[in-house]
């Protein structure tokens, strides 16, 4: 079972860092051809270097794009098909956290910015990729939701709304496209030590964020942060043929946190 991704084309948004980068490394180790999309061009190069360290023969296409821009999404999907001829698996993962604030202070612009990336961006990705997969008659999509998409977290109006929205899109599209052999699922990561979560802790206390992090995971049943590679294993499983019958559902990866209250 080492090479679940031999000859498979895997498209990953937010591939420059965090969960997208971890998933890229995992599927590349198992033979995938990669298309990595990110807003940050330098981060894409960094992921590519890491990919080539673990999979020297991997074919990697980098596309700098803003997932909140529908035309840019159409373009990255077209580029993928043009280059590799198909899309086996799509990790629809790019997202941002937004500035933390009470609802009354969250700000309309900030709300729209977060929703534009996390929800609209995921929808655009589904719109263009599912069309391709429907014609193929196969494919697996994994959307990145969050524990903040199934629970209340606080101070994250935009993030909560958009990630709950991702869960809804997942169920809706899964129901629609299952009949074409295409499955759509979401992962709901909890406290995973990614650059985004590090940034979030620094918002809480810039000088003492590591200590804040330790306190932050005290309520977690496993008493630790998850590692990005642990999410990479889950994403790889769900993106592979092993998980075809898993459809229209949300899979938390959170050390048990969302089952606690």
């Amino acid at each position: 079972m080492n090479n679940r991704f031999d000859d498979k084309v895997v498209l990953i948004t937010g591939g420059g860092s965090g969960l997208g980068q971890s998933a890229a490394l995992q599927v590349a180790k198992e033979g995938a051809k990669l298309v990595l999309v990110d807003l940050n061009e330098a981060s894409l190069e960094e992921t590519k270097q890491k990919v080539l360290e673990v999979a020297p023969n991997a074919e990697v296409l980098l596309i700098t794009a803003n997932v909140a821009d529908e035309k840019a999404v159409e373009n990255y999907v077209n580029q993928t098909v043009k280059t590799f001829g198909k899309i086996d698996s799509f990790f629809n993962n790019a997202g941002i956290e937004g500035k933390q604030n009470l609802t009354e202070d969250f700000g309309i612009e900030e709300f729209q910015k977060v929703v534009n990336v996390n929800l609209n961006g995921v929808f655009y990705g589904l719109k263009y990729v599912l069309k391709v997969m429907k014609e193929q008659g196969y494919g697996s999509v994994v959307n990145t939701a969050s524990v903040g998409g199934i629970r209340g977290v606080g101070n994250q109006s935009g993030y909560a709304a958009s990630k709950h929205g991702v869960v809804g899109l997942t169920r809706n599209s899964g129901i629609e496209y299952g009949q074409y052999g295409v499955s759509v699922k979401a992962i709901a990561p909890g406290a995973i030590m990614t650059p985004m979560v590090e940034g979030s802790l620094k918002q809480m206390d810039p000088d003492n964020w590591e200590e804040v992090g330790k306190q932050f995971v005290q309520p977690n049943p496993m008493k630790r942060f998850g590692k990005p590679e642990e999410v990479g294993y889950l994403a790889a499983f769900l993106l592979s043929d092993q998980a075809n019958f898993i459809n229209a559902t949300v899979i938390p990866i959170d050390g048990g946190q969302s089952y606690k209250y």
Partner: protein
Amino acid sequence: MKKLQNKVAVITGGASGIGAATARLFVSEGAKVVLVDLNEEKGKSFEAELKALNAEALFIKANITSEQDVADLFKQTVEAFGKVDIVFNNAGIGRVQPSHELEYSEWRNTVNVDLDGVFLVAREAIREMLKTGGGTIVNTASMYGWVGSPGSAAYNAAKGGVINLTRSLALEYAEQNIRINALCPGFIDTPIIPEESKQVLSAATPMKRLGKTEEMAKAVLFMASDDSSFMTGNALTVDGGYTAQ
């Protein structure tokens, strides 16, 4: 690299269906398997089949509703293989019958196997895993642990119970390195489903087909292996989208 090299896995309901498919996959990933079942004939022949593949397999006849049987089967497992790393807590029963015609004894029997039995196996597994420093348990619930259906009150109640038993045990033993998750299958192509029902149940599923036992096995492998090291308390639904409708 095999995912379960040198791991010892106990599989209840291991002689047929999802249990047997999981045993086959576990063996191919390097595990030693203990097949627990009430059906001695099927269990022994499956044990022989796996041994013929050079796998280490042991059949134990046991009734999971008997505390003594459950204690004994873990004792025999440890005697044979030295430890217990993985338990696929999968044995269950169910049949369709209008609830107003359901004898209390039938209710008791269903809940006894599907919920009490799962608890007894999990409890004994946890006792062993506390000695060795950890392990993983996968309980078989059902998508009918999430949603209702007519004529299966006892089964559905028990399976809903398995989901929350899974969460509760997971939280209790997370710090002891014992991960506990559940599998919630949808309509799966096994002999339990009559031929004449298969088309209706496929049509009712968004993927327009039944699930395969091998697909359940792959989900169990994921949850039983280190690939899911940050996941506990999870009830993984593998139903082609049925319960999202």
